């Protein structure tokens, strides 16, 4: 390759949300950018639910709605608590979400990432697919100065390397820049793509004209593990999946595909996907460690962004927007350092961390810093016991069988106390409130 002789302003490793945001932002500011993607095309290694948040993409590509492959804009969110035969739900649907510039969209990542990558190329970056970066190159002072790949040829040099290599990125962990994620701070999610005609999806969920609905569910579907089920409506498909902490999978030896098949067969889900054709089965890790799992984000000649930096809000199920925003902010910091002709040292790249701390990314993660530990240590209570109690209470309330109402209420209260004790109920409530605060 001729370009090996060239030196780049920046090398970006990975063409997911954070890598594309970083590459696009730097190239738009005139930096000479080289981006590597190990997949056949951008998106071919990437998995997401997926919900995309407009505000964070607007900050990078303001007119994205003109040509981005968007599936449905969301008008309804259903939060379900499930036991084996029921769901108790809180639904929020609003006509206000039918606006000129909707706030949230479902997307299909392989298509979206190809679109984003076209924007990156149009902005002037060079994108090399089917290329796995195998090693970071360092100088005598240990500064990262380039990379080696599995293509023929030697090292390729740049002033700074942006590690956007995803949740289980090998390079940064092998180079000792950060630790590998712990089993209790990553979730394994599996999902299937269920295809159905557009009008069937709209009938089943009461949608019209590109409107979308998502369901997110906790309960006995995760079999006592800390986990979440999800169903997202796309234009002509439904993304259906479930994820639980890897440490819980390892402790219980549950099979993720068995959980997924049981979810598909749940009486509340089965009719929603009836008659669908499954066209793909995917698995991916999701960072769940929150604020306390964020690693060192910058060093001499490098920064880390997106899932590789564990930037994911497990409580609000937001990841791609944190990825896009961290990629954009890292790029803006690099552009600033470059403009004042500063070297890409740890001392200068701290600017990325300073800017990220001021953004919603770090502020949101800080707010929920105690939530991962709480949900992990109390998973059976929060994901099995309470969902079962909630279902019993609801059924007791709905079913009319001649039992005096006062006795029904007493029975519900007694069931709660029997399951968790008075102290347990109060303590769970207080701990949840503190972690939420």
């Amino acid at each position: 390759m001729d370009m090996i002789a060239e030196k780049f302003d920046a090398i970006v490793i990975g063409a997911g949300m954070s890598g594309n945001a970083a590459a696009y932002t730097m190239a738009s500011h005139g930096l000479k950018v080289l981006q590597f993607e190990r997949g056949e095309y951008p998106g071919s290694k990437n998995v997401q639910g997926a919900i995309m948040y407009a505000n964070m993409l607007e900050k990078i590509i303001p007119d994205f709605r003109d040509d981005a492959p968007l599936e449905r804009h969301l008008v309804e969110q259903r939060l379900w608590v499930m036991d084996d035969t029921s769901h108790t739900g809180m639904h929020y649907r609003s006509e206000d979400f039918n606006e000129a510039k909707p706030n949230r969209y479902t997307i299909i990542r392989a298509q979206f990432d190809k679109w984003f990558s076209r924007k990156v190329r149009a902005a002037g970056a060079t994108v090399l697919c089917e290329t796995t970066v195998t090693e970071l190159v360092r100088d005598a002072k240990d500064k990262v100065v380039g990379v080696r790949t599995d293509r023929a040829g030697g090292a390729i040099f740049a002033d700074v390397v942006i590690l956007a290599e995803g949740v289980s990125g090998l390079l940064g962990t092998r180079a000792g820049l950060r630790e590998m994620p712990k089993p209790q701070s990553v979730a394994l999610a599996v999902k299937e793509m269920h295809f159905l005609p557009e009008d069937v999806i709209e009938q089943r969920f009461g949608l019209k004209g590109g409107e979308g609905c998502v369901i997110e569910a906790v309960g006995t579907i995760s079999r006592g593990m800390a986990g979440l089920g999800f169903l997202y409506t796309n234009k002509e498909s439904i993304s259906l999946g479930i994820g639980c902490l890897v440490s819980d999978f390892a402790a219980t030896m549950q099979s993720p595909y068995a959980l997924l098949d049981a979810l598909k067969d749940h009486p509340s889900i089965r009719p929603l996907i009836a008659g669908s054709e499954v066209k793909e089965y995917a698995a991916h890790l999701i960072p769940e460690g929150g604020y306390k799992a964020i690693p060192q984000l910058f060093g001499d000649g490098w920064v880390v962004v997106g899932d590789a930096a564990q930037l994911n809000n497990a409580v609000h199920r937001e990841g791609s927007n944190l990825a896009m925003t961290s990629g954009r902010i890292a790029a803006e910091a690099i552009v600033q350092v470059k403009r004042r002709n500063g070297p890409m040292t740890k001392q200068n790249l701290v600017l990325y961390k300073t800017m990220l701390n001021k953004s919603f990314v770090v502020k949101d993660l800080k707010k929920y810093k105690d939530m991962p530990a709480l949900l992990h240590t109390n998973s059976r209570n929060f994901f099995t016991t309470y969902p079962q109690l909630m279902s019993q209470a609801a059924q007791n309330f709905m079913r009319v069988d001649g039992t005096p109402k006062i006795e029904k209420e007493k029975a519900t209260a007694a069931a709660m106390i029997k399951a968790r004790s008075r102290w347990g109920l109060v303590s769970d409530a207080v701990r949840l409130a503190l972690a939420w605060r």
Partner: protein
Amino acid sequence: MTVAVTLRVEEKLYQNRYLVDSGRPHIKVRPHERPSANLLGLTRVCPAQCYELNDQGQVEITADGCMECGTCRVLCEASGEIEWNYPRGGFGILFKFG
């Protein structure tokens, strides 16, 4: 739940697109007498069921159906029980939808 679930992950993997790098598996299991709890767990936890127990009670891997999620790496790389690398550029799982 009373529903009987068939554990046929092959049917799921059959939907996927792969470019297998024949003869160059990207994951290797270190030879062992008896697997650790985590390594044994992979026979159930791996979402592609790549790990299987052989007749001698040792865990073996066939990585062809691997979706490169990294679960096994998180559980078993630090102990040295498995060696995990990315497939060569362009090879491995190629998600159509992702």
